[in-house]
């Protein structure tokens, strides 16, 4: 740590940090280094991407639910992808599925979720002026932006976007001549994802550094809110797994563009042998799923963290099993790295290896169940306040359980042979990952909107939005279990030409499509609420949810540096709700025990002696430090 008197270096840094005077429009809103602005940029980008991503899914749902329907009215958007007979082009169907998956998993639920809330909440909840490196943080957003532009651009090229599924398995994705979607679209997909990975690494490195190094006085790891724990572990997962995806993508790029044979071997196309020998497509699957499985937790953990916080706040009860929650998140994060092959039970694996991966996979059910129980026991006999954020959090718990249960079924390799690549899998991961994380995201927006924009979202609209979405999602995904069990494969353009699919479940497929359209339509309520409240919403009070965490001690519209004076010190954990004897039903983290003699437990009275020590600690204030 450099704590030195004036020398040239520190002077230079002091200048760098001295931006309290108003800045230009560009530096304030566009190339901003302020974590709150970057968070909002991520949020708006995420919302934009989710509209696109969900629209794509509605298009292919039309095809699946109503195979005979004329889709001419989509021609203004899709152009020649609707052919002369008014049908969706089968190649483009695959592209739609691929882009839907990529966009939702990476651009909405990774960047839009972690990017928004890790950026927004980490400095505010650990008590820091900003991220460790504002510059890298800004860079992270703009790498993401560039990745977005390229991915979006790939939707509009003549051969169409990538079409190999979001998992882009070679050889299909490695051979441009294999499929339209493996031509330029695939190249753009790879470039975009490489930039995206760089963006995630820059972001994640910043999150970890901030949590470890920039906590305020007294904010020990055992006093961190669960949100921060979740963001922290998410960033660690990303740091370890995204480079592996980068490796996989690099080798694929070389195979595609330079003719190497990492993933290709002995392939005939139109009767002609390709020169590639000696590659292994399974190698790609191993590398991909080494990221792919942690990725599903990168998507879910932030949602779990935020909803823990929201549920404790709105149950007016301490979180049940704070340490167990942390331990189970760590357990999940650790196990996430050693179960990847459960996605490959059917790709040809040594059956013994399969049993090992099955065993490891099923162990995940233990920490997952701990989390589910802790949620329920926190709610149990709580003084529940049903805010929209709370409803969405409870919705998450519901999806997490109903989707997690099917995970246990799929984790059995013998059952998975039947169910792999059917709609059963689609139902599983949409509930446990898609819906649960989306609900975490929405809960987060409803809960922290007042802190972000200084205004409240409309509650009535929030309730309507919740119920329509909650019911809609179950209507969409629950029937998919049946379709999956009966054998309908995923990623198929139409089912009409198979004997076994001809006369069954056609009505159910139509029903799912209608439910999807219904659920999508309901989201516009939220969009409208969001945009309207941003400008016209009711002004937010200082602490609208009577919550304990530090962000509510900052001004309603926090400026640069978050707190005008000193950063508050922290004396207690974040979950002192309804403490027996206390005046209010909540005691914020920055209230010392010496001020609450009426509610202190005996061991807490002993902590009063340490308060002086905490206050005297070196304050990690970025404004006061040359570094």
């Amino acid at each position, binding site marked *: 740590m*450099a704590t030195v008197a004036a020398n040239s270096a520190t002077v230079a840094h002091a200048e760098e940090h001295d931006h309290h005077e108003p800045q230009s429009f560009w530096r304030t809103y566009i190339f901003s280094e302020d974590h709150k602005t970057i968070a909002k940029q991520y949020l708006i980008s995420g919302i934009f991407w989710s509209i696109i991503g969900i629209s794509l899914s509605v298009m292919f749902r039309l095809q699946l639910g109503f195979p005979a329907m004329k889709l001419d009215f989509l021609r203004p958007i899709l152009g020649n992808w609707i052919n002369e007979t008014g049908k969706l082009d089968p190649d483009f169907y695959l592209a739609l599925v691929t882009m839907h998956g990529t966009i939702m998993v990476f651009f909405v639920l990774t960047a839009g979720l972690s990017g928004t809330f890790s950026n927004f909440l980490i400095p505010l909840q650990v008590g820091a002026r900003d991220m460790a490196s504002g510059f890298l943080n800004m860079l992270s957003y703009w790498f993401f932006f560039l990745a977005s532009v390229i991915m979006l651009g790939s939707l509009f090229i003549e051969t169409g976007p990538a079409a190999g599924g979001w998992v882009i398995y070679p050889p299909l994705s490695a051979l441009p001549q294999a499929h339209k979607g493996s031509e330029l679209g695939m190249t753009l997909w790879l470039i975009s994802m490489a930039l995206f990975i760089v963006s995630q690494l820059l972001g994640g490195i910043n999150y970890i550094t901030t949590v470890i190094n920039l906590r305020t006085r007294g904010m020990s790891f055992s006093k961190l809110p669960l949100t921060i724990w979740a963001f922290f572990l998410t960033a660690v997962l990303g740091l*370890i797994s995204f480079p592996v995806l980068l490796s996989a993508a690099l080798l694929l790029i070389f195979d595609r563009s330079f003719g*190497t044979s990492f993933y290709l071997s002995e392939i005939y196309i139109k009767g002609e042998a390709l020169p590639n020998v*000696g590659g292994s497509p399974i190698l790609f699957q*191993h590398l991909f799923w080494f990221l792919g499985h942690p990725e599903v937790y990168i998507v879910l953990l932030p949602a779990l963290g935020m909803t823990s916080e929201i549920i404790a706040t709105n149950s007016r009860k301490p979180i049940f099993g704070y340490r167990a929650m942390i331990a189970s998140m760590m357990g999940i994060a650790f196990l996430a790295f050693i179960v990847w092959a459960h996605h490959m039970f059917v790709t040809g694996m040594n059956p013994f290896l399969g049993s090992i991966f099955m065993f490891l996979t099923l162990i995940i059910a233990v920490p997952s169940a701990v989390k589910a129980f802790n949620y329920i026991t926190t709610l149990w006999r709580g003084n529940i306040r049903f805010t929209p954020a709370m409803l969405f959090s409870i919705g998450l718990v519901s999806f997490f359980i109903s989707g997690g249960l099917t995970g246990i079924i799929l984790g059995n390799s013998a059952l998975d042979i039947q169910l792999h690549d059917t709609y059963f899998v689609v139902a599983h991961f949409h509930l446990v990952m898609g819906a649960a994380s989306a609900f975490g995201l929405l809960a987060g927006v409803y809960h922290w909107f007042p802190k972000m924009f200084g205004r409240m979202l409309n509650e009535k609209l929030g309730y309507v939005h919740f119920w329509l979405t909650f019911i809609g999602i179950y209507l969409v995904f629950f029937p998919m279990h049946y379709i999956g069990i009966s054998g309908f494969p995923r990623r198929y353009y139409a089912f009409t030409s198979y004997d076994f699919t001809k006369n069954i479940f056609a009505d159910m497929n139509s029903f799912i499509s209608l439910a999807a359209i219904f659920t999508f339509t309901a989201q516009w309520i939220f969009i409208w609420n969001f945009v309207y409240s941003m400008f016209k919403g009711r002004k937010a009070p200082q602490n609208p949810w009577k919550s304990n965490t530090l962000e509510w001690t900052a001004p309603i519209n926090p400026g640069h540096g978050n707190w005008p004076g000193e950063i508050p010190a922290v004396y207690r954990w974040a979950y002192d709700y309804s403490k027996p004897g206390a005046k209010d039903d909540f005691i914020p983290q920055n209230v010392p025990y010496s001020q609450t003699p009426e509610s202190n437990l005996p061991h807490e009275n002993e902590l009063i002696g340490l308060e002086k020590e905490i206050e005297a600690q070196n304050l990690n204030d970025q404004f006061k430090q040359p570094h």
Partner: protein
Amino acid sequence: MSELVNNITLVEEPEETLSMNPRKFILWLFIVSIIMLFAAMTSAYLVRRAEGNWLEYAIPSIFYYSSVVLVLSSLTMHWAYLSAKKDNFGNLKIAITITFVLGAIFLYMQFLGWVDLVNENVFFVGNPAGSFMYIFTGLHGFHLISGIIVLVFALVAAFRLRIHAKSLNQIEIAATYWHFLDILWLYLFFFLVYFH
């Protein structure tokens, strides 16, 4: 109940939260991500090699010499750090410059290694055994270039007298990264020799 809590909860000593300079910490995390990148590559190599159909060829001997050069550059880098610590600006500039030159020589030797490979009829395109050789050396070279850029910044800072005993962060960061790249290469090289 409260008694129970009392018994099991240890009274925690308040600890200082700041442990390390954030920039150095960022560097270490960056290094972790590079390690994962190469861990993936080397595991891919092992998985692929286990499947057979593996081209055998001699590793160009120039890679042995280039390894020596890189180790030497690490030593001069350390010399630069020690000089900065002693405020010996003359030596600091010389040491960074030598490190820079050795780094450039290393890169050139790696390139010559590729020429040797081509003369041996081992091409980038062909059996993955050869392709992996190019990938490892190439990716490492790419990272080394980034290390050289960090060095150039340190050199400029040294000339502007921004590096001295009381302001060591920059040289420490440059040195840590450089040593890491050195160790990374030694790992890759031993790996390639051992699993040939």
